């Protein structure tokens, strides 16, 4: 296993009296590509909030083994359409860490911001208002902002949610490129198992308040998925693309 960045040890998470996740145990190593997969409300974002330090575990602990710089990519809707900011203004927010509370952007910050925008293919959007961009363009701006922090770990909350198929594919291609070319550890949240199955090296499956985590080769099998979700599931390969299906009548067959 690669160098461990963070250990989640028997962690229970929730809000107030409500428990969302129980006894979560997993380790995220440097250079891994994790897919956090589960339906809406299954606790994926809750675990992300705990990794960001925004939510303290009710039980257990989260141990960071070294100082890790996190580049966080929220859901696109997190940024209000009221905001009068250009794409560059948004990306520059990623440079705040450099100077702390009293930060003033330097020419270096502008250069770094322009560089990451070019890297994610949005150099032509620099001066356009963020609120006027398409869903895919907004997503790239938010990824560029996270990259501007020069992260060791990229945390992405539903980066492909609500995007059309070609844009979803392009965003996943971009993440794979960032992962392979820059060696950045990636954790992305999705409710589509098929999406994670074709990109991730590791999976965390969220179900019934629990998390089953491990390498994709261990988890992405008919037996393991059927046991996890308590329903017959099969994994197929079509032109090199993994497709996960729930077994049953035609009406019941769907992408898991």
């Amino acid at each position, binding site marked *: 296993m690669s160098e461990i960045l963070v250990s989640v040890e028997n962690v229970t998470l929730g809000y*107030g009296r409500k428990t969302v996740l129980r006894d979560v145990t997993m380790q995220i190593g440097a250079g891994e590509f994790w897919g956090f997969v589960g339906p809406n409300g299954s606790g994926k974002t809750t675990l992300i909030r705990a990794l*960001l330090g925004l939510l303290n575990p009710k039980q257990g602990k989260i141990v960071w083994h070294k100082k890790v710089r996190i580049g966080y990519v*929220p859901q696109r809707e997190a940024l209000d359409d009221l*905001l*009068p*900011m250009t794409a560059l203004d948004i990306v520059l927010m*990623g440079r*705040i*860490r450099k100077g*702390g509370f009293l930060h003033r952007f330097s020419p270096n910050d502008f250069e770094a911001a322009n560089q990451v925008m070019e890297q994610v293919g949005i150099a032509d959007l620099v001066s356009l208002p963020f609120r006027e961009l398409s869903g895919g363009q907004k997503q790239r701006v938010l990824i560029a902002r996270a990259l501007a922090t020069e992260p060791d770990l990229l945390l992405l909350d539903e980066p492909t949610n609500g995007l059309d198929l070609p844009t979803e594919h392009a965003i996943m291609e971009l993440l794979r490129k960032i992962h392979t070319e820059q060696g950045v550890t990636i954790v992305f949240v999705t409710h589509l198992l098929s999406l994670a199955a074709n990109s991730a090296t590791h999976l965390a499956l969220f179900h019934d308040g629990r998390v089953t985590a491990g390498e994709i080769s261990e988890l992405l099998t008919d037996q393991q998925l059927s046991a996890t979700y308590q329903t017959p599931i099969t994994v197929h390969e079509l032109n090199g693309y993994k497709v996960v299906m729930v077994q049953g009548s035609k009406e019941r067959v769907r992408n898991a």
Partner: protein
Amino acid sequence: MLEMLKHDFLRHALAAAMIAGASLSFVGVYVILRRIVFVGAALAQLGAAGVGLALLMGQSPLLGGTVAVFAGVFGFILMPQQERVVSRESLLGATYALASALALLFVALSPVGEAHITALLFGDLLAVGHGDMELLAAACLFVVFIHFIAYHAFVAVTVDPTFAHSVGVKERWVNLLFYLSLGALIGACIRAIGALVVFAFLVLPPIAGLLWAKRLQTAFGIAIAIALISAIWGLWLSFAHDLPAGPSVVAVCGGLTLLAAVARWATNLRLG
């Protein structure tokens, strides 16, 4: 217009309205973006209640207003983030209603009586003395200075608090500083320009700014410009036509904001 400036009390009134208007409309851009307009309204009314209580007890209205606003700020900060039975918005609405009633009751019971009720709502711009104006200017400059030095932290926490946290901005402290600065500003302005004018400056010019601006800095600029024009034009109308000062300023401010909204709508229509 120049005739108006020959009078000391009108010069003070104009300076006070311009300083308060520019500062409130600047901070108001954040108020609109954070969708906490009701917080602004409730704090302004709490300030008025504090002024009313101070008049009743024979204390300094500035002190009474400021203490009440800060009490409101801490109450708001301590409100649970997770809404359980009653929403934060409902609690703010209840605070607004209660503070408005208490403000009027305190003044009605005070020795100075109901004559001060209008001043409580619309302030007493024409009674602003040289000392009051210096105090108001010092408080406003202090708040604007804080916003200047922590500009990127305020913007980051307003735009995306989770991301701000992830890059190491202490969003709880930044929020505390923001609400304290908002409280200090409202507390300093409430006696001079009154609850309704404070609220109008907090909301109307920033709406116009956000309607037209493509960048945050432009929104601040437009909001401040509209507040300054409203202060000058409103006071001139008040002087020329013997109208009450506060309502004249609010009317001009509302008119300009409406004009900005209609112009925006027409532009959008033309551009398809």
